[in-house]
């Protein structure tokens, strides 16, 4: 046993690696001696927040995680649900915030690569990517660099591996200036019988490392990047960012799926955060076995690498398989066919110890379970933030609101041009949206729709979170994140089946941040329960702070819904002149936290919209019943910018106007821009109007018939009368102009 640390030096190294003194003491107790360098590195990574969820674990128990369709809940690389006829869908969302904040192209690209590996590790072929992005305002060159680089990285990686990017969301707010958010979601499709586990078992079986060589890139990524706040030294952390090779990943996808299809593997895991340490110890822990790994067998990318470097390297595009000695030759033949390296680096043992050696010399020897399962679990302190009372007490009606059609029209154009509302085409034009030929509805609508080839079915998918609402009320904000995702999926004709989440917060060691985290998890859990939709996978990203201030609480939801009949899918654009426009739901005076308040008045305050989960669900059910009955021509949810923006978007997308009258008795600005939840702009053929309204009446949901599709103007009686051309001219070019530095967001606020 190598003895490379003294009892005096070991605690110092532990602190440098981010371990707390009590955590170090626990390691000494587990080992019954002073740890080696390799052991300390391995524990520091596995017990980092990123790998161990030590601050969030207890709160996450609030999530409902089971349901009749759930084949695999949280705990594996991705969750899996059955979608019928023996087909299953695997999906998960994960953050790559900190790497992207330092090196946006590689950070975002490897974020996509990592989540894709989580999917095919389960035995599923990746069929779609989505994402959720947050940046500061694009006025600063640094923000434009982050935004452009991240989008290019997502496209560069996803396009190359041949997985379409079908949807996503992006917001720009000063709260994310020092800490952008890059959340990547991937979805895979498989036959139920091919569901695979990242498990090691069978003493004497071989541990096979497949894919790229191992280098020093990404050393300590999980602990130094993902589990600490940023400060002015963040640039120095650039060497901790991994570099992606999507070509290698494409070969890995094909080779691994072929290996699984041929039933050549006992288990398969991917090397993500904390590299070999994490995947090997988790596979050993799940299988209740031990492992004996010899780092001198690992193909190295550079000379002179130390054992701990092999164990914690985050070099990308590597997979770890367990294979029986009898099937090794067949497995390696498939790797060779795909031009991939495959190397036996160790064996499965029955000792339940994780042994690492360099040739004959043992450099680490610890109980395997203690890495993956024995990390300390914390109960962080919680305090309701002081800012909330004042922010929520703000009364938007005290502001001077436009009342004339001229003033309201100008406000609408400004909200449409806002970076948070405007066209996202500049982004998704850079993504392959169609490869694999299953994309039925591309980005730009409420939800993407992907068909399950060979069946009549499809899935509808959306990622959502309004961080501003969560800042003003994390409990309600998280519920709204869920509700909006479900509403978007319902607008495409999908019934929600399950969600994944990516919970982005500041430091959990700050009581105000942890309170917001806890409230968000509680809110999302309550929403899931009300809709009977489980959480099947997810990710927590803490320490999203820079220069001392946390980002907005941003609990992002990725929701997958199922359409039994893909041909009944719904889209948002106005279809035919003469169609009747119906507003599902009822508008309340809810300008708090709205895009209008931010864009037109420069104010981010007030109570966010209220949410009645039962009512919300009843509205979705009513819409879905109407869509399934063939009564609906278009459906689009009202979100940022309220009903005025929703109508404008339907008109722009369909190149067809409408004339409507809003029959609420609110002040004009509230009527147009209030962000009351549970509202959907629905159109139907004139002949179906009675059947549609009868259906809504029988379902007991609030609605009003507000007008008719037609012409080339959007007319909202007494409030708005604007040509579609003018609406589109405001909505379309913002992102491209901001990226080119041709436009400052200041100019967007001016009337």
């Amino acid at each position: 046993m190598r003895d490379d640390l003294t009892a005096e030096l070991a605690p110092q190294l532990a602190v440098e690696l981010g371990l707390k003194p009590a955590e170090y003491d626990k390691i000494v107790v587990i080992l019954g001696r002073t740890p080696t360098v390799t052991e300390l590195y391995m524990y520091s990574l596995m017990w980092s927040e990123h790998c161990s969820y030590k601050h969030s674990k207890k709160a996450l128990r609030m999530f409902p995680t089971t349901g009749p369709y759930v084949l695999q809940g949280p705990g594996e690389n991705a969750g899996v649900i059955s979608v019928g006829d023996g087909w299953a869908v695997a999906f998960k969302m994960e953050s790559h915030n900190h790497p992207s904040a330092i090196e946006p192209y590689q950070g975002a690209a490897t974020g996509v690569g990592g989540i894709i590996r989580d999917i095919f590790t389960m035995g599923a072929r990746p069929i779609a990517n989505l994402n959720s992005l947050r940046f500061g305002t694009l006025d600063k060159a640094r923000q434009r660099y982050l935004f452009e680089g991240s989008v290019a990285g997502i496209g560069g990686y996803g396009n190359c591996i041949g997985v379409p990017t079908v949807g996503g969301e992006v917001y720009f707010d000063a709260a994310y200036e020092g800490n952008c958010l890059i959340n990547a979601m991937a979805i895979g499709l498989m036959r139920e019988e091919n569901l695979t586990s990242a498990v090691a078992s069978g003493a004497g079986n071989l541990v096979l490392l497949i894919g790229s060589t191992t280098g020093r890139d990404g050393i300590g990524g999980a602990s130094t990047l993902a589990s600490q706040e940023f400060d002015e030294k963040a640039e120095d952390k650039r060497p901790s960012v991994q570099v992606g090779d999507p070509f290698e990943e494409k070969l890995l996808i094909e080779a691994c799926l072929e290996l699984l299809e041929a039933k050549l593997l006992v288990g398969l895991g991917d090397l993500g955060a904390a590299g070999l340490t994490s995947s090997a110890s988790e596979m050993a822990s799940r299988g209740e076995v031990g492992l004996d790994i010899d780092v001198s067998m690992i193909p190295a990318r550079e000379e002179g690498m130390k054992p701990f470097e092999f164990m914690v390297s985050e070099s990308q595009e590597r997979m770890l398989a367990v294979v029986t000695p009898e099937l090794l030759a067949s497995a390696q033949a498939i790797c060779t066919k795909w031009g991939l390296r495959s190397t036996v680096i160790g064996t499965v043992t029955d000792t339940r110890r994780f042994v690492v050696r360099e040739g004959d010399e043992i450099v680490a020897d610890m109980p395997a379970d203690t890495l993956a399962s024995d990390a300390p679990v914390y109960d962080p302190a919680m305090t309701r933030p002081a800012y909330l009372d004042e922010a929520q007490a703000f009364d938007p009606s005290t502001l001077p609101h436009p009342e004339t059609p001229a003033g309201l029209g100008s406000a609408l154009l400004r909200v449409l041009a806002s970076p948070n509302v405007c066209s996202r085409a500049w982004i998704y034009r850079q993504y392959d949206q169609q490869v694999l030929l299953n994309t039925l509805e591309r980005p730009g609508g409420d939800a993407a729709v992907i068909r399950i080839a060979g069946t009549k079915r499809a899935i509808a998918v959306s990622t959502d979170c309004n961080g501003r609402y969560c800042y003003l009320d994390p409990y309600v904000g998280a519920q709204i994140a869920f509700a909006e995702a479900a509403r978007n999926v319902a607008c495409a004709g999908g019934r929600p089946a399950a969600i994944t989440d990516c919970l982005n917060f500041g430091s959990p060691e700050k009581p105000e941040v942890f309170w917001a985290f806890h409230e968000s998890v509680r809110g999302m859990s309550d929403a899931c329960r009300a809709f009977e939709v489980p959480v099947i996978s997810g990710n927590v990203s803490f320490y999203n702070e820079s220069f001392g201030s946390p980002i907005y609480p941003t609990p992002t939801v990725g929701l997958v819904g199922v359409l039994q009949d893909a041909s009944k899918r719904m889209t948002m654009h106005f279809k035919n002149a003469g169609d009747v426009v119906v507003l599902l739901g009822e508008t309340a005076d809810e300008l708090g936290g709205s895009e209008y308040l931010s864009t037109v008045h420069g104010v981010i305050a007030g109570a966010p919209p209220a949410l009645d989960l039962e009512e919300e669900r009843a509205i979705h059910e009513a819409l879905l019943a109407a869509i399934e009955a063939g009564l609906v021509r278009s459906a689009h949810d009202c979100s940022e910018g309220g009903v005025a923006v929703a109508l404008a978007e339907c008109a722009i997308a369909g190149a067809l106007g409408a004339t409507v009258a809003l029959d609420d008795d609110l002040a004009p600005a509230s009527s147009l821009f209030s962000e009351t939840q549970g509202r959907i702009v629905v159109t139907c053929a004139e002949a179906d109007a009675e059947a549609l309204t009868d259906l809504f009446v029988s379902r007991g949901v609030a609605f009003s018939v507000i007008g008719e599709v037609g012409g080339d103007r959007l007319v909202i009686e007494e409030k708005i009368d604007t040509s579609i051309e003018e609406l589109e001219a405001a909505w379309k070019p913002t992102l491209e102009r901001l990226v080119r530095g041709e436009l400052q967001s200041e100019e967007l606020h001016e009337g």
Partner: protein
Amino acid sequence: MRFGVVRFPGSNCEQDIVIACRYLGIDVDYVWHGDTDITGFDAIVLPGGFSYGDYIRTGAVARFSPVMGEVVRFAERGGPVLGVCNGFQILTEAHMLPGAMLRNRGLKFICETVPLRLERTVCQWVDLPEGTVVRIPINHNEGNFTADAETLARLDANGQVVLSYCEPDGTRAPGGSAPNGSANDIAGICNERGNVFGLMPHPERVVDPEASGTDGQPFLTTIVARLAGV
């Protein structure tokens, strides 16, 4: 009549070509890039994707794949060869078609359904009337076709320009209609004989009306009818 679709490491549209062919009732199978025997195939398709990661240059490594020697001989014997997107890039690198690809003007990947105009052409893969406008997605980072003036003039004179980017009404804008900056708005060309055809747009993506459209169908079916002598 059987199509062979070459799988290079990093190809990612090969299964899309196969799905589209099967939808159209065309017998089709994969050809592994390491194979050196392509007997039994009546037409060869080089699919889209990122063969060999597009490292060095798009298509620059794939042209050296073992199968390419056979593909060249097949084409020399008059066998029909189609290159879609990355396949087109490989055909230029293999000198089976003239010209080369630069990065798109604007240096951004472009995924978009665009209008394209059929030109007067000797290409055996199409028989749509000159001036027909079709809408097919493009999906590339390096589709900015370039060649010297003499080559461009020769392509034009010989009827080797098959498809041009255009405006929705079929006209070509004075400043160019190619979203990627392609010379003469060129989206697809063939060799002098008309049997080797490369195009940047993806016809296989618009074959199934349930999913997208049908404008891509003739780009796969025409050669079948021609070889069958129909």
